């Protein structure tokens, strides 16, 4: 399976996650969100950028609590919760936002 981004075909797995993390560029997130009928706003990009930074340091997506705490610190306490994240990413922040950010899917009992 592939996804078309800027005229390039990028390989994705069965669930639409990028096969090669290095293929990521901001247009990937745009292309994926378009398929989900979701328009990315600055609020979405705040999350996507944080996920990428965290992944770069720790080689894993942040735990939900780590993410909500970071969001709360940066954007205000009223946004530092799962509810806010689910409003942005209705398929689940852990999975949908990770996919847009080019991260692998979190596996396990989550």
């Amino acid at each position, binding site marked *: 399976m592939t996804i078309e981004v800027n005229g390039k075909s990028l390989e994705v797995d*069965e669930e639409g996650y990028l096969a090669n993390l290095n293929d990521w560029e901001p247009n990937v997130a745009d292309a994926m969100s378009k398929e989900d009928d979701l328009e990315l706003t600055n609020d979405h990009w705040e999350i996507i950028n944080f996920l990428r930074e965290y992944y770069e340091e*720790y080689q*894993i997506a942040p*735990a939900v609590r*780590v993410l909500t705490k970071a969001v709360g610190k940066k954007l205000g306490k009223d946004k530092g919760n799962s509810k806010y994240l689910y409003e942005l990413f209705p398929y689940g922040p852990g999975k949908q936002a990770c996919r847009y950010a080019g991260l692998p899917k*979190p*596996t*396990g*009992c*989550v």
Partner: protein
Amino acid sequence: MAKPDFEIPELKADTEAPAVQEGTMSHSSPFIAKPEHQRPLSYPGELVEDWHDRAIAKMSDLLGKYRSFRVYLDSCVKCGACTDKCHYFLGTSDPNNMPVGRQDLLRKVYRRYFTLVGKYLPGLVGAQNLTREVLDEWYSYYHQCSQCRRCSVFCPYGIDTSEISMAAREILNDIGMGQKYCNEIIAKVFKIGNNLGLPEPALVDTLEGLEEDVFEDEGVEVKYPLDEKGADVLLVTPSADFFAEPHVDGLIGYGKVFHEAGISWTLSSHASEAANFGLFIGSYENMRNVSMRIREAAQELGVKRIVFGECGHAWRVAYSFLNTLAGPFDFLDPKYPIPQHILEVTHDLIKRDAIKLDPSANDDIIVTFHDSCNIARATRMGDMPGGQFVIPREVIKAAVNNFVDMAPETIHDATFCCGGGGGLLTDDLIELRVKGAVPRMNALKHVIEEYGVTHMAAICAICKSQFTKVLPYYGMGMDMIVSVHQLVSNAIVLEAKQ
């Protein structure tokens, strides 16, 4: 919540057996494992050319190894007692999801190759050759069994469909047809130490964050130690406890209990996973390899006790198999159960007044409890029969003033699976998961309407994630589901708080 491309069942006051509809779930089939998921588990990377002969040889091997397997295949008399007991049948109407229907998928091949009548007069006993169609049917329907063992409670012969499912999955793995979800995860445990693939620095960062949060909330320095040599207790907990909600609130609770009781404890980065998916794929070798990490960590850290966090099948593997898989544990303190469940620890501390709970801290909620299948039907807690039902409820009742049980035919050893157990907690099986949750959702809806229940507590990472995901499909809030130690965490009186 994603928009479903299937019909969501309507909830009813009572769960009734539906009229049979053939093939409603024949399309359900999880992603097949890729070579990189198969090889670390010592399985062929893809379907082998001689899959037919190899599958029959593997079946023969399992029949020789596990006496129970042959007895289960031989002893069914088609009495029908199991037919309306599986949550997946109740939610999908597919007769292959009746436990007897599921067993027969393997039984018909067993009869063809391993019984006299089946060899010579196959039509007489419903014996059938192993064909590619049969193989695909196995892959589909043996990944529609959560190995919860509810049917075995009602079978007069005690046939355990979960063991037949495990055998089927082992045969499938052995010919290179593994399931991606389970095998990718087991490979991650071998490589990194946990299902999620959380490396040590991420664990450190997450645990430091928890210490900060608890200090901010409580003004008490509760520690969440990692790899601390010489600690008394090694806590082995599902990695979802580090990562997901509401799991992490349970982990916060374990830490508060240890802190308040003055028990020195540690987590391990090497054994940062309680779950053991080797069970789900019926593989003794893989189950053993996962278990050995716990032994290694316990020895390395020099602990005296091993305690398991809230994880259903982990407690089954721990309680029933750990000593033979990874024992002997003669280096641990024999004064304590080996291994021990966190609920046993907390329960004992409450009984001895070694920790104090103030249940009024949870007065804003009315709680019910979901018995996790593996804990209910494959383990025990404490030293009395049925302790696995009593102890969690006693801990909950010490932590909350308002507790209500769901209908008796849906709790204790008759509990319904959450719908996501046994290696099925994956998005590619979401239809099955949503439909399989029907009996539990019915029972929950009833206590919500009748008693105003606001929250359902669980003691299994899979149950917690599954309910978080499926509750919204039925118009209920995902935050209804809580960890038992989250309730404890809210209610425990910490010294500095007094």
